[in-house]
């Protein structure tokens, strides 16, 4: 009897080891989102809502305080500055702006995690679909912390929609290059519904709803991406710092000229203070 117990334990251990090695992954349960995705539409300046013009034309539901911040940023941009858009100094777009997909995107679906790989800023999003709860503490990041659940909305036995919530975002971030701002409290929550277009599986749709204290109500936009038919896809490396000539010294933005000298970016801009150089003392 005792020996049979040992045998059972050994058998159970062997089975557990075998299952651990098997890593069963029923790939047929998940949609085919393979390939290279490129944004559809969007117009000049890649505005956040691709259905509306860039800038004020977006009609973002900003509070009065943040509308004023947005207007000041537009004035700065008109004067040659960069406004509130931090990407000129190679700060990543972050969420949700990165989902404009200005450069191509790849999505790799695994049972535990869906990876969204964006060429721009070589951004990697991990959307955890392993059933985890929100952690007690989240280290803020530009991509945020994303938890997703798969839904089989048409009941055909296969998942078709990934429902995602993203929290834990850090700033500075803007919705697009016009400088539409987020609240400085970093409490943005983003909800996405990602699925293939039922009429055209070469089109991926993403309904993105942003909840942020700079907004008077949640702001929903629909973005879509087309699957590039070229096989295999060609991927490029986008390295922001490689060609970036902006230099930030204190709060002043300068550029380095083609001949390697520091230059102002706006008329009458003062040069940097050189008090720490021996020759200036």
């Amino acid at each position, binding site marked *: 009897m005792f020996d049979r117990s040992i045998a059972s334990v050994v058998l159970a251990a062997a089975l557990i080891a075998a299952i651990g090695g098997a890593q069963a992954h029923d*790939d047929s349960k998940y949609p085919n989102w393979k390939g290279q995705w490129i944004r559809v539409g969007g117009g000049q300046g890649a505005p956040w809502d691709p259905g509306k013009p860039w800038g004020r034309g977006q009609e973002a539901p900003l509070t009065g305080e943040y509308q004023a911040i947005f207007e000041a940023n537009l004035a700065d941009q008109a004067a040659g500055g960069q406004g509130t858009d931090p990407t000129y100094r190679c700060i990543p777009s972050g969420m949700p702006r990165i989902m404009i997909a200005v450069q191509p995107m790849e999505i790799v679906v695994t049972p535990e995690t869906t990876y969204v790989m964006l060429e721009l800023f070589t951004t990697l999003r991990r959307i955890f679909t392993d059933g985890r709860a929100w952690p007690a503490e989240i280290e803020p990041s530009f991509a945020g912390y994303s938890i997703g659940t798969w839904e089989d909305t048409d009941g055909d036995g296969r998942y078709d929609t990934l429902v995602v919530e993203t929290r834990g975002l850090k700033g500075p971030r803007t919705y697009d290059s016009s400088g539409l701002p987020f609240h400085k409290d970093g409490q943005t929550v983003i909800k996405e519904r990602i699925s293939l277009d039922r009429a055209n599986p070469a089109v991926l749709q993403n309904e993105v709803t942003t909840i942020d204290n700079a907004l008077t109500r949640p702001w929903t936009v629909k973005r879509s991406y087309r699957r590039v038919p070229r096989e295999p896809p060609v991927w490029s490396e986008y390295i922001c*710092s490689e060609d970036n000539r902006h230099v930030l010294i204190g709060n002043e933005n300068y550029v380095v000229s083609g001949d390697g000298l520091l230059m102002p970016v706006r008329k009458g801009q003062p040069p940097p203070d050189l008090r720490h150089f021996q020759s200036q003392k």
Partner: protein
Amino acid sequence: MLSRYSIGSGALAAALSMAVPGALAFDETKYPDWKGQWIRIGPGAYDPARPGGKGQQPPLTAEYQAIWEANRAEEAAGGQHYNPPARCLPAGMPRMMVAYEPMEIIVTPDITYVHVGLSNEFRRIYTDGRDWPERYEPAFAGYSIGRWVDEDGDGRYDVLLVETRGMKGPRVFEASGIPFHENNQTVVKERISLDKANSNVLIDEITTIDNALTRPWTVTRKYRRERNTNWVEFVCAEDNTYVFVGKETYFVSADGYLMPTKKDQPPPDLRYFNQSRK
């Protein structure tokens, strides 16, 4: 009859072609379990078995040995111009495999993806049986083709053999500035596998062939697995206090002023500013 048969076959083929991409058959039992977070074992020197800097003893040609010595002299004087990551450029291959920050490996049948937290460095290793393309755009991470091998014959792949070409510069092997040849004809060959004695250790045997070297240079790097992952985003540009103007490296102080990195370093030339407004 012929046309009916042909049309029937066409319809069947069409139905199959819709069904097959849907199925996405992936026999995961054929591939090794490399899931989790991989953290480098040992120091950040390129060859972790040797001391950093001069102790690396890379087999450089005399010409590139002189370049390395000049880089070390610049480092000693406070400069970082020779070290591309100091200006937020990627380490590129093979240095990115030092994995200064944790690494994730995502295995799929067609592509194995490698992501290293430092500067979000990212590689695709194609394992779909493709040939080298006639042309590829040079990249810091290069273009990698891999092949799975079942070395112990247990029916499951255990070794990924990788060759990487098409790198661009500037790149160095490590922070002391061990250089690559400026022709960027580097070829990197890797053998990646789990340690047979400990499946929570990953081993990457990396051989670099480069015209700055007198012979191929092989180093072995190891990583330990952390199953309870905690991914941290590392954005180089966010906290980088180095400023590069022409060939000079400066610092920006905590209070926002430009500072020299070397003794008696001249300040930047401000000829493009209207000094009369000062």
